[in-house]
């Protein structure tokens, strides 16, 4: 999904992963460059979260390569992973801490000095609209605010690649809209990879869509206006395991 003469921010090359004897991801290859948002679309169980976990370094692939800026994530994991900001499906938060304290820890965890961390936390609190809750305990926040804290922890160390697993899951319509705006803003300085099972969400904020089904990449295309109906047909046909040309 990048031009041939540029090194993509992220390139995954034929990664596979088996869980509990089932091939959850099978020889999947993808690319995403800075300034792009790639949406990984699929029904529940398609292998989206497993793919993102492998990219984030939480789960190792059985085979294949994950390259961040050309460097193999699993050969030099500690340096490479610092270039990735990851928001899993359930935001990894420490409910007993307040927002500022938690974000400060996340920044320090990614190698920022105390001074740099303070600046970064202020920046992300502003960007993610967390000012009014910055001194409140995370456990006392609404789902929407908790999700924003999750996004802020993924961005606090200025990663080149932002990986978001179902970022709008469980949010109300207003919060979902704000989340889409935030993802669109991220495009300016980051490569963004997000997973969703909602076609409308993928269309609203992605440049490219990759449809995953049973761990296999079934369709990949650039998002263009006016092709919603065709893409929807394609997605439903893949989700229903129908051959091309078969009526739904």
């Amino acid at each position, binding site marked *: 999904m990048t031009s041939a003469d540029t090194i993509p921010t992220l390139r995954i090359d034929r990664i596979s992963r088996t869980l509990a004897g089932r091939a959850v991801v099978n020889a999947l290859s993808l690319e995403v460059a800075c300034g792009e948002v790639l949406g990984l679309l699929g029904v529940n169980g398609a292998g989206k979260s497993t793919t993102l976990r492998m990219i984030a*370094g939480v*789960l190792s692939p059985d085979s294949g390569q994950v390259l961040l800026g050309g460097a193999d994530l699993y050969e030099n994991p500690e340096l490479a992973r*610092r270039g*990735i900001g990851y928001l899993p499906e359930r935001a990894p938060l420490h409910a007993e*801490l307040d927002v500022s304290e938690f974000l400060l820890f996340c920044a320090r965890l990614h190698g920022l000095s105390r001074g740099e961390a303070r600046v970064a936390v202020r920046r992300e609190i502003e960007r993610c609209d967390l000012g009014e809750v910055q001194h409140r305990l995370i456990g006392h926040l609404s789902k929407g605010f908790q999700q924003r804290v999750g996004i802020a922890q993924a961005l606090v160390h200025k990663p080149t690649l932002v990986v978001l697993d179902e970022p709008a899951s469980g949010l109300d319509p207003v919060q979902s809209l704000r989340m889409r705006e935030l993802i669109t803003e991220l495009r300016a300085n980051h490569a963004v990879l997000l997973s969703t099972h909602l076609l409308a969400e993928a269309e609203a904020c992605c440049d490219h869509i990759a449809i995953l089904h049973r761990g296999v990449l079934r369709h990949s295309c650039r998002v263009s206006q006016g092709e919603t109906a065709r893409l929807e047909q394609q997605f439903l046909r893949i989700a229903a395991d129908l051959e091309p040309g078969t009526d739904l």
Partner: protein
Amino acid sequence: MKTSLVIAGHEWRRLRVQAWPWLLLAAVLALLAWLFLDRLDTYLRLQESTGNAAHVGATAQVAAPVLGWLAILLIVLVPLLGSRAIAGERRVHSLNLLLAAGISDVAIVSGKWLGLCLWLLLLIALTALMPLSLFGTTELDLGRLAANLLALVLQAAMLAAIALYASSLTAQPVLAAAVALLINLLLCVVDLGAREAGVSNSLINWLALPSHFGPLSDGVVASVDLVWFALISGIFLALATRQLAALRGAD
């Protein structure tokens, strides 16, 4: 090392802002204070009846029993404090934060271990204030007291390593605490049969915790005991690190 310290500081902060570790600390200190006063009362009555004006024996009769009680309480307390370190994070899915942060498994485990040790050091230091409060009014055997405190610190660090390993085995903190408690108890009684048979110098005796804590708390600082504590701590920390690495490849 820097990342380990960041994680240790964070673990300490997480324990600090919650009520239950303080309640646990307060309950243990209250119990030990009661035992301390009871031992002190017995000691003073003994002094009066024997007319020992020099107050000799306060370390053996007051300080050592109180610190010995803490050693016993630690066997139960450390699994309770440490079981959530990894299991609790797995249960609420926040372990992903550390796994995806680009830090090594060794740094994660050592950071969590140091954070837990900091809390236990606070408990030991506060307990040590009780016998130290006798300083100046009686003749304390400071050498023996120091050896006793060293034994406690080494035991606490070892139990923290065991708790961390147990915590890495499951996503259920209660189960992790039970596993850690079982390992602790096993280390305490592993040579029970041998001792009952009159054997006190075999490999099985060497494996048991009392064989190493006992001499240290009696004031005998031998390298074999220090090595034993370091070895057991190291083994369980290595196992916890290995378990964390296995989680990344978990099937």
